[in-house]
């Protein structure tokens, strides 16, 4: 693990909303490149674009509550050589403006950076309307689109800097709640790469976003159960790092995926597609199972919907049993 410079999980981890890292990353990207610009749909503070707006007011566009406009204004900015980051809640962008993203960014090959905050049930009290669960699926099916789901705020910061240098349309998925920071400023991030956060030979746990921390905790418990779990963190769901994933699965022979979104079309869907064609093995997908969320505090919702270390651990046992 030393090459990844991860935080020491036996210590008390700093907790910070993943979106905060985006805010810092965007400001840093803006300082590095004068062409980085930002547009927001009336959620500047929530999506953490406020840092950029304060520093570069002349490079910031407020479109109001108009997500279709948000995406297409972004395409126009990109057409003139700008690197536009456009943000809202994931439920609205890409939730509402999918066709605009499809036509004016993906088919049109304009490198708009869609930033969807407040994804997943951990949005909490706002309830199902605002808990975006289908965004990974929506973005993953679009040709030319890159889908990035960072696991903590530091990774979100690095991902944002990488996005500013990437010439494709990108989707960045962010979560609202404070999430344990499991990486450090020295942890690598490259678009399209998956990372083995924990080595093991009995089961591969493939995770993204907020669930990676949960998987690491599950791996600790599994170790006490006598099981060595390999945790593969997948911050880029598209393009998928097939090589890293298949290498791990060929070794362990079974898989659990975990994500805070619909497994249909999400990370679970992507891994199922990859394995079905290349190396079919017993598999269990943790995530939202064709249902919506509801109001509650984040932790009770995560437990209720089975999106935590406890359920990952159980799923690991089940899939390992199926190997025999």
């Amino acid at each position, binding site marked *: 693990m030393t090459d990844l410079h991860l935080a020491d999980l036996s210590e008390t981890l700093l907790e910070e909303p993943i979106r905060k890292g985006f805010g810092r990353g965007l400001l840093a990207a803006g300082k590095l490149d004068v062409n980085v*610009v930002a547009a927001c749909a009336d959620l500047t503070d929530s999506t953490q674009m406020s840092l950029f707006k304060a520093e570069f007011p*002349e*490079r910031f*566009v407020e*479109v*109001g509550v*108009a997500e*279709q*406009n948000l995406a*297409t*204004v*972004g*395409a*126009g*900015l*990109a*057409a*003139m*050589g*700008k690197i*536009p980051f456009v943000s809202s809640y994931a439920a609205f962008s890409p939730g509402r403006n999918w*066709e*605009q993203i499809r*036509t*004016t960014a993906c*088919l*049109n*090959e304009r490198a708009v950076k869609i930033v969807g905050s407040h994804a997943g049930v951990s949005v909490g009290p706002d309830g199902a309307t605002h808990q975006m669960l289908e965004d990974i699926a929506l973005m993953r099916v679009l040709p030319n689109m890159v889908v990035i789901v960072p696991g903590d705020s530091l990774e979100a910061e690095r991902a944002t800097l990488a996005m500013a240098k990437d010439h494709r349309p990108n989707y960045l998925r962010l979560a609202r709640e404070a999430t344990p920071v499991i990486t450090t400023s020295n942890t690598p991030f490259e678009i399209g790469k998956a990372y083995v956060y924990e080595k093991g030979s009995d089961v591969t746990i493939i995770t993204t976003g907020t669930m990676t921390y949960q998987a690491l905790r599950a791996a600790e418990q599994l170790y006490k159960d006598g099981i060595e779990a390999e945790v593969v963190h997948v911050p880029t769901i598209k393009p998928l790092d097939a090589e890293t994933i298949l290498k791990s699965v060929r070794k362990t022979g079974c898989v659990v995926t975990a994500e805070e979104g619909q497994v249909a079309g999400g990370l679970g869907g992507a891994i199922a597609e990859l394995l079905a064609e290349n190396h079919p093995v017993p598999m269990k997908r943790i995530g939202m199972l064709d249902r919506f969320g509801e109001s509650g505090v984040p932790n009770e919702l995560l437990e209720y919907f089975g999106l935590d270390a406890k359920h990952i651990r159980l799923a690991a046992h089940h899939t390992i049993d199926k190997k025999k």
Partner: protein
Amino acid sequence: MKKQPIARLEVIANDIREDIIKMLEHAGSGHSAGPLGLADIFTALYFDVLKHDPKNPDWPERDILLLSNGHCVPVRYATMAHAGYFPKKELLTLRKFGSRLQGHPERTRLPGMETTSGPLGCGLSQACGMALAMRMDKQTKRWVYVVMGDGELNEGNIWEAAMLGGKYRLNNVIGIIDRNNIQIDGPTEDIMPLEDLKGKWESFGWHVLEVNGNDVEAVIDACNMAKTIVEKPVMIIAHTIPGKGVDFMESDFHWHGAPPNHEQAKKALHELRTLGGKIRGEHE
């Protein structure tokens, strides 16, 4: 491009109409009425109004022209070919497999096609984004023109962009509405009334000009006038006759989304070549 006399431009517009008929007949599908109605506007834009270079489509100082209602792209293809962007013989590849002339325009396939369009309502907001970028870069001598259909104005995205253009006073955006009063299902005022259209745009903070969109000279004058308006973005409501130049297509909404068959194309070409029977056609 070198400016040409209005009489010459009117001949070019007529040639473009002939090409539209031939392209659509050959393709066997596509929209007839809109492209024919827009021939004068596209002639005015490409042969007088726009700062552009067909031999250097990515010229950084060029004006931008967006076609928001992508289904009218035959008129743009025909005009671009006449302006020298690509060989006219390529026009007959419209909608064919492997062609750069897709049924709806794709930017990445054809140099000079500034954006991909077809799904309606997305042009004005892209124009606004481009205009904002030009402002950030202090490019004051460039304009973004965007042609929209009238039926297209049913789209909410248009009005989101209308608010944005008004808010930021994007005086480098010049919108042109093809006010031909038809859409696929029928007359616009039956399907989803747009009037008071001028009042709508004015209330969104736009300066509105109205013009006969089938008068090349009037369209040029309106665009020149629009460039002098500095305090607001400008929307030109261009009143056009759908199917203009082909008697049996004019103002009949059934021709919105249909191509002519061989007989109809022959009849249409005869009419265009004789300017409605006023002169003897060269092929008679």
